[in-house]
């Protein structure tokens, strides 16, 4: 079995990357392979990174309130690329009223401020089936 590959991305204009960086390190320490895109990524660039890195998971860090615009775009682009199997999780400031809508569109996990890193590690381990190594 190969290790789980995660793309951590900061979409939009926001530069607050503390959460993204902490979670990237925590996932790496938990044995996953982590690719951090850096700041100001468009949904197109993020999905391109997923494709290129053959990732199993995308973690989107959004604190600015733009999630209802960015998430549907990422999901649509994943579908268009045939990447439906990729698990998408979002961390940040997400109002309750948006949670169900995000889940309905295919966001697998939503993590609010204060979520323990271990909870996110466990969630990914439970939701992502490690694929056989392709030789």
């Amino acid at each position: 079995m190969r290790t789980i590959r995660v793309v951590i991305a900061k979409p939009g204009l926001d530069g607050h990357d503390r959460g993204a960086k902490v979670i990237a390190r925590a996932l790496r320490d938990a044995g996953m392979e982590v690719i951090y895109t850096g700041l100001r990524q468009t949904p197109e660039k993020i999905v391109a990174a997923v494709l290129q890195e053959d990732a199993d998971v995308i973690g989107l860090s959004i604190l600015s309130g733009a999630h209802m615009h960015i998430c549907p775009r990422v999901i649509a682009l994943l579908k268009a690329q045939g990447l439906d199997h990729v698990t998408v999780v979002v961390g940040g400031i997400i109002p309750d009223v948006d949670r169900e809508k995000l889940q309905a569109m295919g966001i697998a996990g939503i993590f609010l401020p204060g979520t323990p890193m271990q909870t996110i590690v466990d969630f990914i381990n439970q939701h992502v089936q490690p694929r056989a190594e392709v030789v």
Partner: protein
Amino acid sequence: MKSPVPGTESEASKARWEREVLEPTLKRSPERAGEFTTISGRPIDRLYTQDDVTEGEAPAPGEFPYTRGIHPTGYRGKLWTMRQFAGFGTPEETNERYKQLLRAGGTGLSVAFDLPTLMGRDPDHPLSLGEVGKCGVSIMSLADMERLFEGITLADITTSMTINSPAPMIFAMYLVVAEQQGADWKTLSGTIQNDILKEFIAQKEYIFPPRPSMRLITDIFQFCAKDVPKWNTISVSGYHIREAGSTALQELAFTLRDGIEYVQWGIDAGLDVDEFVPRISFFFNAHSDFFEEIAKYRAARKIWARVMRERFGAKDERSLKLRFHSQTAGVSLTAQQPYNNVVRTALQALSAVLGGTNSLHTNSLDEALALPTEAAATLALRTQQVIACESGVTNVVDPLGGSYFVEKLTLDMEEGAYKYFDAIDRMGGMVAAVEAGFPQREIAEASYRYQQSVERGEKIVVGVNGYVDRDEPPFPILYIDDQASDLQMARLKTLRKTRDNARVAVTLEALKEAARGADNTMYPLLDCVRAYATVGEMCDALREVWGEYEEVPSI
């Protein structure tokens, strides 16, 4: 009775106390932990005595180096400015909130801009998707600035504007609105944050590379020294450094070293130190570790006074006195059990007051969930008013001066900051250190260490990893929809059709010309603004000349 050798007697008495009183107690009931540390991870001893205070008594308030405060009368003369940061949606919506805050007894305004404005992008740029009016107010052009301050006389208030990369553009808009109201720029007062170094270090809202960004700042120093002499040209900010996960010491050291860098660049640009340093102010975080924070503010004043006098030869007293705004720690607020945030904020605000803050923003209880509702914002302001009017702490100057613990922490903060200064000086200054990623790495390390200590349960956050409620009731929040965005988009289209576009093009060309050469960019920017050029257009003009900065991503 005086002991022949200073300290000997108390040392002996502490040793005796430890042997006779402490040890038997520890045998009966050990302490709760092997080590006690501040939220920054600094170990704290059980007890501090006069032996820990290795320097003589700090000079009185109003006296160099101002450890105990810059005013001899503290808050007995004048309370701190209660300045609540606010902005969302359209300029009209924010204008309403400002009028409400002023009616509620707020004494200064503080503008929060949305991300497109902060990043110098117009609302129709692809990266502005979903961001217009969300985290702050959308200001595209002079027309929006006119709407923002409609019915508010700029000559009568002071305004703080949290704007960095596009600070010159937004400041120019403010000045033109003041001009329209008939205000004299010479009497106008307020602050622009204008601190680009902490953007590279922490908040990452940069546009241009570091060196041209520094040039924009020295242009403002020069412009204000001549044209807007009462304006605070920069608010050197530790707030964002701390929010990004630094320790209290790192916040102090990096912020003051940023300040030193600006002073050096101002001098290198040909300014006299006392001509512009009095208009430099600071902005610190008021975090949760009560005494560590108080020590941080006291040390900040002391270090700044010394460095300005010794390193730069400043003579004007105003150059030596560090004035600072503070804001309670957004990062300490929890989405869980949001009412607990009121208590956190009150304690943090109290530490800022005991540390002698000159102005203060208190966060609202709902800010880990959304932008604050009006009720939450009012409660945050009331928190300051309770401290000011009811707690009694404002009756006396620097009430914690002389506390062994606080004085020792203050000395340690000072020593630690000078060590960081030496390291950064050896790298060739803060711009070079930032380019090498030094402060960025230090902060990322500290942030990860803290998070791990929470994960391990060494640090308890009430409601998060201790005293958790499984079933929390729903909590009412302010929901920002897309109406503001739609309206601003429509306005942008209209603006581009109705303004004199030939004049816009000419003024933008003149701006590029100044940017390529050495002329002060503020004057051509004022002309761009008067022609209703947008923030995005003005920043694009400079992007064309200077390029854009891109950080190398690292974790």
